[in-house]
C-alpha cells in the first residue's frame, strides 16, 4: 500500500476523491449554508437537454474567446519581449508600458471598454490584458538572463549579435516562455469571464451573472465550476508542455 501511495498521480486522485466526498457531505447536511449545494445538486443543472445546451453554447463562446485572447496576448507579449531584447534602448520604455497595462484595474476599466469596444469584444480585450503580462515578464527575464558563459563563448567565437541571439538567447529562454504561457492561460480565461459579466451577449460569465440574479444556485455553481475546469485544463496542459520543454532546453 505504501509503495502504491508513492505514485504521485494516485495520491492526487485520492486527494480529489476525499475533497469531493467532503463537499458532498457538507452540501447534503447544509453545514455551509443553503447557498453551498452538494455536488449531486449541482449536477441537476445539467439534467435536461435544454440546460445542457445552454452550458455547451456558453462554454463554446467562452473557450473560443479565451483562445483568441490567449493567442493575441501571447503574440503581443512575445513580440514586445523580442523587441526589448534586440533593442536595449527601448527596454525601459517597453517595461513601463507592460507594467502600465498590467496595473490597469480591469474591474474599473470594463464598463468603459464596453462603450469603446462593444460588449462582444470586451471579454477578448480583458483576456488579452490579463494574459499578456505574465507571458511578457517571463520571456523577457529568460532573454535577459543568459548565462555569462554563453556570452563569453559567443564573444570568443566571434558570433554576430543576431546569431548569438537566435542560437543561444532564444533557446535558453524557451522554458521561461512556456512558464509564462502556463500562467497566462488562466489569466486569459479570467479576463474573458470578467469581460462577459459586463454585458456580453453569451458566455459562461453571462450564465454566472444571470444565475446569481435569479438565485439559481446549482446553475451558478455549475457555471463557476466549468470556468475553473477550463482554467485547470489549460494550466495542466501547459505544465506538461513546460516539463517537456525543460527536459529539452534545460539541464
Amino acid at each position, binding site marked *: 500500500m505504501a509503495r502504491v501511495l508513492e505514485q504521485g498521480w494516485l495520491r492526487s486522485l485520492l486527494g480529489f476523491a476525499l475533497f469531493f466526498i467532503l463537499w458532498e457531505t457538507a452540501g447534503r447536511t447544509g453545514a455551509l449554508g443553503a447557498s453551498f449545494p452538494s455536488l449531486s445538486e449541482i449536477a441537476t443543472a445539467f439534467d435536461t437537454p435544454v440546460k445542457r445546451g445552454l452550458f455547451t453554447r456558453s462554454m463554446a463562446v467562452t473557450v473560443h474567446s479565451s483562445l483568441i485572447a490567449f493567442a493575441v496576448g501571447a503574440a503581443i507579449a512575445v513580440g514586445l519581449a523580442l523587441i526589448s531584447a534586440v533593442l536595449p534602448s527601448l527596454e525601459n520604455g517597453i517595461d513601463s508600458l507592460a507594467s502600465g497595462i498590467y496595473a490597469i484595474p480591469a474591474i474599473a476599466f470594463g464598463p468603459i471598454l464596453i462603450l469603446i469596444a462593444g460588449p462582444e469584444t470586451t471579454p477578448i480585450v480583458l483576456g488579452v490584458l490579463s494574459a499578456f503580462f505574465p507571458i511578457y515578464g517571463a520571456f523577457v527575464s529568460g532573454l535577459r538572463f543568459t548565462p555569462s*558563459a554563453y556570452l563569453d563563448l559567443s564573444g570568443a567565437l566571434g*558570433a554576430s549579435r543576431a546569431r548569438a541571439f537566435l542560437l543561444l538567447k532564444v533557446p535558453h529562454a524557451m522554458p521561461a516562455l512556456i512558464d509564462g504561457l502556463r500562467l497566462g492561460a488562466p489569466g486569459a480565461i479570467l479576463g474573458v469571464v470578467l469581460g462577459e459579466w459586463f454585458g456580453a451577449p453569451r458566455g459562461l460569465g453571462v450564465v454566472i451573472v444571470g444565475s446569481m440574479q435569479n438565485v439559481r444556485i446549482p446553475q451558478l455553481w455549475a457555471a463557476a465550476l466549468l470556468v475553473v475546469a477550463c482554467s485547470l485544463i489549460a494550466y495542466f496542459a501547459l505544465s506538461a508542455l513546460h516539463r517537456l520543454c525543460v527536459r529539452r532546453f534545460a*539541464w
Partner: protein
Amino acid sequence: MSAASSAALAVEGISKSFRLGRESFQALRGIDLALAAGEFVSVVGPSGCGKSTLLRIIAGLETPDAGRVTIGSSTPAETTAAHRLGIAFQDHALLPWLSVAENIALPYRLAGMTVDQARVQELARLVGLGDFLRARPRQLSGGMRQRVSIARAMVLKPVVLLLDEPFGALDLVTRRHLNLEMQRIWGELGTTALLITHSVDEAVQFGNRVFVMAARPGRMHAEFAVKLPRPRDRRVTASPEFVALVQKVAAALDDATAASTASGMPG
C-alpha cells in the same frame, strides 16, 4: 621575450584595472608573455591573481588599459571575428538543448559557416565520444562534458587554444585521466595553447614552460622551462625530475602568494 614579433601569441605590457565601488583595483600590471607556434604554456597562480582576466583579454572579452595582444599578426578582435580562437572554460558552457555533435558543431553555426560533419565526427572520435554523438550533455559525466567542450574549442582549427581551468571542476580521478587524454589530443593537433590552472601538477604536466603569477596586482613572478619527455604519463610524473620541478614551481607559487599578501591593495 624579444621574439614577440615572430610569436604565435604575444602579450606585451598588459595592464588592467577594475573599479570596485569608488576604488580602482589593479588586476594586471605589465604582463609580458610570448608563445611560439605549437607551444603549450601553463600559467599558474593564486586565486585572484588575474590569470582569468589575462585569458579574457587574450580572447578579446576584455580590453586592456595598456599594452597589446597580438595573435599571429592580428589583434584579438580580428582573430575572434575570423573565428580563429578556441576556448574552453571551467564551466564547460555546453548547450543542454543540443546533442554532443551539435554542441561540437556550434562554432560553425555561431560563425555562420556550413557545418563540416566529417570534422565534427573526427573530433568527437579524438576526444573518445564517437559513440555519443546523439547524446545530450545532461546524459554525460562531468569528464565527458569537458571533452565535448574541448572538441568544440578545436573544431574550427583555431590558431590559439585558450584553456581556462578546463579540468578545475572535475574529481581527481577523472582529472588525471583527462589530463593524459588531453596531452594525447594536443599531441595530435599541435595547436598553440595557453592553459590557466591553479594546479601545479597540471601546469608542469602540460607545459613546455610554466609561468607563476603573483596577485594584487597580477604580475609575472617566475618562469620555468619544462624539459621532460612526452607523453608525460604516470612514468614521467612519478620520476624524480618531475617531482623536483613540481616542488620548485610550488615553492615559487608560495613565494608569489606571500608577495601578494605583503603588497596588499594598491592605491
